[in-house]
């Protein structure tokens, strides 16, 4: 594909790509394209949020218990980090608008650092969940239980259910109260909450990794002087749109996953 001849004395790609008539058209297209992409992302997460909502309405108790078993402390720190990174990337756009290349590199780098620290904390949180055994799966074990007549029996339940019981009882207080009210069937079904927990946060992490990859790519480009003409701020701008979206997804996930225990749905219907 032939492209327009590069500007005189310039070996890099021309600022306006070959198929656009002018820079305004190019900017409008790039910005518009990213918004359309974000629409599809909204629908993508919309699908899982819909499934989450349906399941939570069916199983309010299980969701309450699952949510209580999570560790909201790390998640709160993470929320703070992610919001801050949204702020730093906005500063990066400002620097790109103004052609401040040191500032651009600084703010891009800080966004990358904040995002990476987020991922580090998230990994620590997953590890904690793993250590507590809160992983859904087909493994079974036997526990002492009583049948409907009060006769002691050995009941086959999933390993997950036993681990959940231990975690909740270890937390004490309200968590223990919730746990005591649950039957073994309900403990088994709490796996569904954890499927949503791992699925939704996993997708979010995936988006974060892609975003950090793109940010590193842009930092390299900035280092090479790609953004020197101020016209190229548009790439930083659409990158920040994506980053804000990832941030926004977390803003939805945090209450849905970590605070479901604080707002019981019991008795709503």
């Amino acid at each position, binding site marked *: *594909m*032939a492209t327009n001849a590069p500007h005189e004395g310039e070996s890099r790609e021309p600022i306006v*790509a*070959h*198929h656009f*008539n002018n820079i305004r*058209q190019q900017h*409008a*297209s790039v910005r*518009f*394209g990213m918004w*359309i*992409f974000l*629409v*599809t*992302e909204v*629908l*993508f*997460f*919309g*699908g*899982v949020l*819909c*499934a989450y909502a*349906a*399941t939570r309405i*069916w*199983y309010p108790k299980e969701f309450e218990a699952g949510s209580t078993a999570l560790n909201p402390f790390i998640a709160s720190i993470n929320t703070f980090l992610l919001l801050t990174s949204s702020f730093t990337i906005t500063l990066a756009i400002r620097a790109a608008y103004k052609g401040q290349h040191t500032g651009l590199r600084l703010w891009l780098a800080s966004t990358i650092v904040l995002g990476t620290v987020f991922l580090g904390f998230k990994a620590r949180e997953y590890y904690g969940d793993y250590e507590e055994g809160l992983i*859904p*799966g*087909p493994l079974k074990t036997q526990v002492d239980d009583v049948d409907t007549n009060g006769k002691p029996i050995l009941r086959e339940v999933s390993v997950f259910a036993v681990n959940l019981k231990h975690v909740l009882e270890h937390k004490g207080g309200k968590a223990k109260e919730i746990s005591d009210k649950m039957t073994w069937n309900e403990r*088994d*079904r709490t*796996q*569904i909450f954890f*499927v949503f927990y791992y*699925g939704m946060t996993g*997708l979010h992490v995936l988006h974060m990794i892609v975003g950090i990859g793109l940010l590193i790519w842009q930092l390299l480009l900035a280092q090479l002087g790609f953004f020197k003409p101020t016209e190229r701020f548009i790439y930083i701008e659409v990158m920040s749109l994506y980053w804000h979206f990832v941030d926004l997804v977390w803003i939805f996930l945090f209450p849905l996953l970590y605070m479901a225990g604080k707002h019981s749905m019991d008795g709503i219907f």
Partner: protein
Amino acid sequence: MATSTAATENLTESVLELDYTPQMAPPVTDLDGPPKVHYLNHSFGWLSWLLTVDHKRIGILYLIPLTIFFMCGGIAAGLVRLNLIQPYGAILELDQYNKAFTAHGTIMLFLFLIPVIPGVLGNFFVPMMIGAKDMAFPKLNLASWYVWMAGAMFFIAALLFGGLDTGWTFYPPYSSKYSHTNVLAAGLGVFITGFSSILTGLNIIATVHKMRAPGMTWGRLPLFVWAMYATSIIQILATPVLAMAVCLLATERIFQVGIFDPTLGGDPLLFQHLFWYYSHPAVYIMILPGMGVINEVITCFSRKNIFGYKAVAWSSVGIAVVGFLVWGHHMFLSGQGIYLGLVFSVLTMLVAIPSAVKVFNWTATLYGGQITYEAPMLFVIGFIVLFTIGGLTGLFLGIIGTDIHLHDTYFVIAHFHFTMVGGMMFAWQAGLHFYWPKMTGKMYSDFWSRMAAVIMLVGFSLTFLPQFIAGYHGLPRRYPYYPVEFQMMNILSTAGATIQGFGYLMPAVYLPLSLFFGRNAGANPWRATGLEWQTPSPPTPHNFEELPIVTHAPYEYALPSKYNLESGHAYEVTKGESGGH
């Protein structure tokens, strides 16, 4: 293009000036040969194809694998039909039969019908029709081809090594508990091709919004572009939800927990809701581009402006919108609430309105036209007849009462194939035959192409009309065995499928042959309006040498100048007709 001398002279005094009114349009000729440098020969080597960002070359890149996938899906259909010659199965084992009809459905839907017109004609012609040099995001366009190929290869591999026996709908528990086939790999394939679909839709929306040439207002967009736009909206809004449904299915299989499995606390209806939220709009992803093609062809071969431009344009958008609200009509018998079923039934009736608007407008366009029956037009007439039958039988299935009788019978199969094959496949053939001279610069055999259209029509009708009857009498779909009294119907179907298969093979012979033996088509062999016909055939690498300026509506085949000569009030007439400024 407004660069002809006549155009510039008269531009100020009247908007009548069309540089391609029928009086001035070039006659069918092979005098103006292909340009020296065009998109096919401006660079050589397989790398120049695999790394191209030219939307026209990417269109060709889609065309070749799509044709192969169509053949694969056709072979699978042939196996199914052959097996059904005898009541207890003629050639296939039971699980082979399941795999064969699943392969047919999945390949045809995910690897052929969904990408075919957006991938080939959409890529090739949307930028040309709106006067752009390329799509808004050419690299993304190439990337979406690679994504699609990767997904398709993955999918085909899953089918070849182990197969898939869930039916194209992936319903749990067929796809979760009871399947020992490659559900995960095939699901991943669908997931990946879905991304390609999203990216193509995104690209087309951005292109239509931002890349239109000066003067190409929304009211002057060719209706194919409107249809592609509506299709793309469905693609970007519906496909992510399918991706999520497949994700959840994969999660269920990997973790072995219940999201859709009721014994573990899940709900299979949830999958059906998520699946049909995509897959019902997906049938409009398949049919809308076909409807767009029909507008281009039918106006050209009846030499008339489209009847009711705005109605046709908005009916595309209407189908896209209402199409999102009707998914529940697939689940009348799945245990969703009866009142919910009633609502979905009523909403389903609503889709008939924009569809009927289109059919009536096409018929009205034919009325009083100077109709000629070249191959594309034959396909279009086939489309209108077959799609009308398909659409009307769809009403039987949309009404909750009759659907309870007809649900999961061959009636559904026949209805679906009338819309998808009789509709979409014929529209695709029409589009391919209409645009082939533009894409390749060569004209194919007139006689054989008309023969192909007739043979396909005969074969198709013979295949699927008996299935309406068999289905009405209660023959269930997807069963390998059937009562002996249905054997005659099945034999008729299989005979029709054979004729149809022969019909599909014909273009695969004479179209490639035309590349070597066909005469030069010239820039505008059909004397059609539209910016794409103003370029040489095959088009030059950047489509337009200079930025085209659009001064009139898309289908001005009629002769406004005639009014001008006879009655002298042409200005008002044209102003009214050109519409939507």
